[in-house]
């Protein structure tokens, strides 16, 4: 067994051990979904960072820096700026009352089953797309590193994720996320320090070397031609910033802490960790260009990175620290994928079991034992569905699927959530129409845009000119919610929160 495989096995066994320990403390729905609200602020902050920093943030960001230079930082700024917005707008309000899911929260405001249905299905859609991205990424990574067939690789990953979640619920995923986040940041720190040391401990020397080694020259430190359409840039920025505020597996974490104060603290800790990570990633990306781009051991006969640009980080680890560092980084990357899959699975399972089954289909509270059993079955069902879809989507560009998830999150759940928390005049009908308008418009515009209509369907010109639909779908969702709420105001709303401002 190679060092990579041994380390990977060790981390998987550690994760399973944590899940078994968490299972002993997980009782009932409150324990399974929210860890009994007993997660501390710093633990939740690390777990939030862990949930957010997927392998795409590590491998994908460095790969993007390698191919498109500064564009990677444009993405980083957008995604980071969502965090202080999350803190200021949503963190404490989400935690004010004990809910299991965001759909719970909306249903308590409007008291209508249709609103819960809308929220739950849009959350499920986002979770599914995100899960597919992670499973495809994990499958390809294992295929490359351990020479296992893709199908076996994704089945293995899916099985481990089911074990983590079904056993220990939110407590297990929290412990796994904070372990993984610590390891990921440690790896990024090690790589960044190695690069910085080889650059004579000078950032300006590193930047000069990056320019010297890049085929684009000085343009590598400026926006690429992909950013030349101003409306594309604005739409991308809007989607990246607001997308975070609609991600169900992130929002769900605010139900796990004791009170609103802990929710705010955890969001702040997460922001700091992510800011640190993105800063280190900027150094790692530059290091990729300097130490990989002209090194024949890491390039194929056509001069492309072996395994694709997503493998830049792994090759860089080898360049800096040989097989040992590469093995450690590979094992941590795989753990990252597993942990994010576990977090997403829990968010999706909660929508399936709590929102759709318990609240909508069954309509009366089941026994705690039954609820827990349903949650575990929902976990299995969701992962099986994502597994099947990941086989179908195996050849698709992962970035497209990720962009789809963010665009849907920014356009569907976020506008309704924001208005529900801050605008008393939002009616149930307005929430429904706004939510569905955002969801449908974002999906439709992505399908009609260049990445799907042209690149996948093969048409000559797109029907919608932008890759990211946020600049249209987000305002459309807000407008639809406002218009319908104004035309059909709250008259039969059940349990409307009277303390909300006008």
């Amino acid at each position: 067994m190679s060092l990579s495989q041994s380390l990977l096995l060790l981390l998987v066994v550690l994760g399973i051990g944590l899940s078994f320990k968490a299972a002993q403390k997980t009782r009932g729905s409150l324990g399974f979904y929210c860890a009994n609200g007993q997660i501390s602020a710093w633990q939740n902050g690390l777990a939030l960072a862990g949930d957010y920093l997927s392998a795409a943030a590590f491998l994908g960001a460095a790969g993007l820096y390698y191919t498109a230079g500064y564009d990677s930082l444009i993405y980083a700024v957008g995604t980071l700026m969502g965090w202080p917005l999350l803190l200021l707008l949503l963190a404490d309000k989400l935690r004010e009352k004990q809910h299991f899911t965001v759909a719970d929260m909306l249903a308590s405001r409007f008291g209508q089953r249709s609103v819960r249905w809308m929220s739950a299905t849009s959350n499920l859609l986002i979770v599914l797309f995100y899960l597919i991205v992670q499973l495809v990424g994990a499958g390809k990574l294992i295929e490359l590193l351990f020479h296992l067939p893709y199908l076996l690789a994704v089945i293995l990953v899916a099985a481990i994720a089911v074990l983590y979640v079904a056993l220990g619920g939110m407590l297990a995923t929290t412990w796994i996320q904070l372990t993984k986040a610590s390891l990921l940041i440690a790896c990024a720190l090690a790589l960044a320090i190695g690069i910085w040391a080889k650059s004579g401990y000078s950032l300006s020397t590193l930047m000069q070397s990056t320019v010297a080694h890049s085929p684009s020259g000085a343009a590598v430190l400026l926006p690429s031609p992909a950013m030349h359409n101003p409306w594309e840039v604005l739409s991308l920025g809007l989607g990246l910033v607001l997308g975070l505020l609609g991600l169900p597996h992130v929002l769900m974490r605010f139900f796990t802490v004791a009170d609103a104060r802990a929710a705010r603290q955890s969001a702040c800790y997460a922001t700091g960790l992510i800011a640190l990570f993105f800063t280190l990633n900027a150094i790692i990306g530059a290091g990729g260009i300097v130490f990989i781009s002209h090194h024949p051991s890491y390039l194929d006969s056509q001069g492309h990175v072996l395994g694709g640009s997503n493998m830049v980080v792994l090759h860089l680890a080898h360049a800096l620290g040989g097989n040992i560092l590469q093995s450690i980084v590979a094992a941590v990357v795989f753990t990252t994928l597993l942990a994010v899959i576990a977090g997403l699975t829990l968010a999706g399972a909660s929508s399936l079991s709590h929102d759709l089954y318990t609240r909508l289909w069954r309509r009366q509270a089941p026994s705690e034992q039954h609820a827990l059993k349903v949650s575990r079955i929902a976990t299995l069902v969701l992962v099986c569905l994502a597994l099947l879809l990941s086989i179908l989507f195996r050849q698709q560009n992962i970035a497209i699927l990720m962009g789809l998830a963010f665009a849907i999150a920014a356009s569907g759940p976020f506008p309704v959530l924001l208005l529900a928390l801050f605008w008393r005049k939002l009616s149930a009908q307005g929430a429904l129409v706004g939510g569905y308008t955002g969801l449908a418009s974002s999906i439709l515009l992505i399908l009609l845009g260049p990445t799907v209509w042209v690149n996948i369907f093969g048409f000559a010109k797109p029907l919608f000119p932008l890759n990211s639909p946020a600049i249209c779908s987000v305002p459309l969702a807000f407008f639809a919610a406002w218009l319908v709420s104004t035309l059909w105001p709250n008259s039969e709303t059940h349990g409307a929160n009277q303390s909300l401002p006008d």
Partner: protein
Amino acid sequence: MKVLLLTLIIVPTALYYGLIAFAPTLLAYPVATMPLSIPLALGMIWLGFIISVVYLWQGRQQDKAACR
């Protein structure tokens, strides 16, 4: 205070993406030995964290004042 902090997030973010969208050549302006683009991006990333810390600190001050 919350409105001020929200403004301090939204306005710089809008300006940053506006700069990339409509005046990208300004990002090439030299700052020490690198273009403006790099320190600007890193500054934006840490601005988000600084605002989070300020909000948290302000919340603690309010809690202390309420306890007196």
